[in-house]
């Protein structure tokens, strides 16, 4: 495992309560700068809640999140994104009425450098930056084979393509850590295969860390170097895919032990 000092993300004693319900508790992980980490667990285990905590959609009730060694306390979701965490959503959240290209452009928002007034006055910086942004957008779309659909409205894309577009949009924000929430949901086996290749490619080319939530065990076991298993908001196991597969606690969580049943 990575040394904690050069971890891109580190959490300590992270937790959140909703009213009396403890959704996540004592969540401690550390992600290396080029690691692919899986986050798995039964339905309702708190996986998406963890993503929402890391991206500050929810403010943690306790604990700390360090991004590149920096405490993200008091950061808004926007600031967390600027600091280097990008994500996709379990229920796809695209900008439906905008085109595929425009969706990615919004991801590039912080990286396109011209002000509101040069936009209104169409100063040279507008044209220069728009051209650069357009080229960058097509480059990114090309990775996921979406470049020829750049002008299509986002909501007219097939389901699998919408998921891929969300990943492209997240990548456009130039993150250090990419959080993928069920990227393969609704994809057929060949699409999933393609996705696995692309996730590896992203890590190798962009040199970023990736954490993903996924129920497709072929995908998780196939590409994740490390896996964290959560149940009832707590980590019950952590390690390499082969270790996780043989962990009795994990098997119990998935198949159900007698204790939880009665």
């Amino acid at each position, binding site marked *: 495992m990575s040394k904690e000092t050069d971890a891109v993300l580190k959490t300590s004693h992270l937790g959140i309560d909703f009213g009396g319900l403890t959704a996540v508790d004592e969540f401690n992980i550390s992600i290396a700068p080029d690691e692919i980490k899986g986050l798995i667990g039964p339905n309702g285990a708190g996986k998406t809640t963890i993503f929402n905590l890391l991206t500050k959609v929810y403010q943690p009730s306790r604990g700390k999140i360090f991004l590149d060694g920096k405490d993200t306390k008091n950061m808004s979701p926007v600031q967390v994104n600027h600091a280097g965490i990008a994500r996709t959503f379990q229920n796809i959240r*695209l900008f439906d009425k905008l085109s595929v290209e425009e969706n990615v452009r919004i991801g590039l*928002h912080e990286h396109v450098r011209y002000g509101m007034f040069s*936009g209104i006055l169409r100063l040279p910086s507008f044209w220069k930056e728009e*051209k650069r942004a357009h080229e960058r957008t097509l480059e990114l779309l090309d990775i996921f084979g979406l470049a020829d659909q750049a002008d299509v409205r986002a909501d007219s894309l097939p389901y699998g393509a919408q998921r891929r577009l969300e990943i492209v949009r997240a990548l456009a924000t130039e993150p250090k850590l990419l959080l993928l929430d069920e990227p393969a949901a609704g994809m057929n086996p060949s699409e999933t295969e393609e996705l696995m290749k692309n996730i590896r490619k992203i890590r190798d080319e962009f040199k970023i860390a990736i954490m993903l939530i996924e129920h497709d065990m072929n995908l998780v076991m196939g590409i994740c170097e490390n896996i964290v298993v959560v149940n009832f908001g707590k980590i019950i196991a952590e390690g390499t895919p082969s270790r996780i597969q043989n962990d009795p606690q994990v098997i119990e969580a998935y198949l159900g032990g007698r204790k939880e049943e009665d």
Partner: protein
Amino acid sequence: MKALKNLKKQTKISFLNYGIVILFFIVVQILANLGMLTNSLKGQLIPILSYVIMALALNLVVGISGELSLGHAGFMSVGAFSGVVVSMSLAENVPNPGLRLLLAIVIGALLAGIAGVIIGIPVLRLNGDYLAIVTLAFGEIIKNVMNCLYVGVDKAGLHLSFKDAASMGMAADGKVLINGPMGATGVTKLSTFIAGTILLLLVLVIIQNLVNSRTGLAIMAIRDNRIAAEASGVPVTRHKLIAFVTSAAIAGAAGALYALNYSTIAPKKFDFNTSILILVFVVLGGIGNMTGSIIAAALLTVLPELLRKFSDYRMLIYAIVLILVMIASNNPKLRSIFDGLGKKAKKEEAAK
């Protein structure tokens, strides 16, 4: 290449809108030269331009930013009365009427923009219906503040009071510019059709270029999915405020243009009904559709005037026309015809 094509598509719509305005200007000039323009219609020209600008401004908030504002007449009012004060107090110092109109519009827009910031910061924390209700309230507050505002000018400068004209403490030779609920009287008419057309074109340039830039894209992203926009690093409040304040400032400019077309103007002109009227233009023209706003605002401003011969029944007919247009524009058959036309045009474009 594709970017050029894409930009061209948006630019095409922009140029269509410039074209409509210029065409309208030319047609009116020709009719005027031929003496075919009735006096009542002539009097409607500047209100038409003002309302078109108002509709465009409101469409920026309702259509592009996706927030329902029911108080835009308030910003129009701020622009109108600050414009009147500027034009009347500078009557001697700036004899050139064109320059005075320009100053009135600029300062009207500026003050309405400031009002937009003051109102926008608290209001834009809300969403949907709540935001609509609070903007409605602010519109009424502005109207009521204007109702008890007294402004006068003498050699010492401007005087202001919220009580009555006497308590402004002006010198004997002072002139009352705004007289509470009576509003402004004896205003020199400065607005001209040419100035209004230029202002409208300028507003179109500002709105369309803003919408077709990264700022506009960010505003639309927030409209479509706020959470995803935040996760993509788009600052939400800042962009909502940009749309709201730009819209308020443009409404102020429209207000100044409108007010300087009349010799008297009272605060009650800019009430809730006016806000709703402008919203009707936006909704009928199509939310987010600038071309629609221009056409709807122009036609619906002229319509009551054209229906004048029906005297008592004219508002009834006006209402019926509104309902008919709404039914027609929501008719699935008509819709599919329009969509079909759009698709055909796209296919042809693709074939090229």
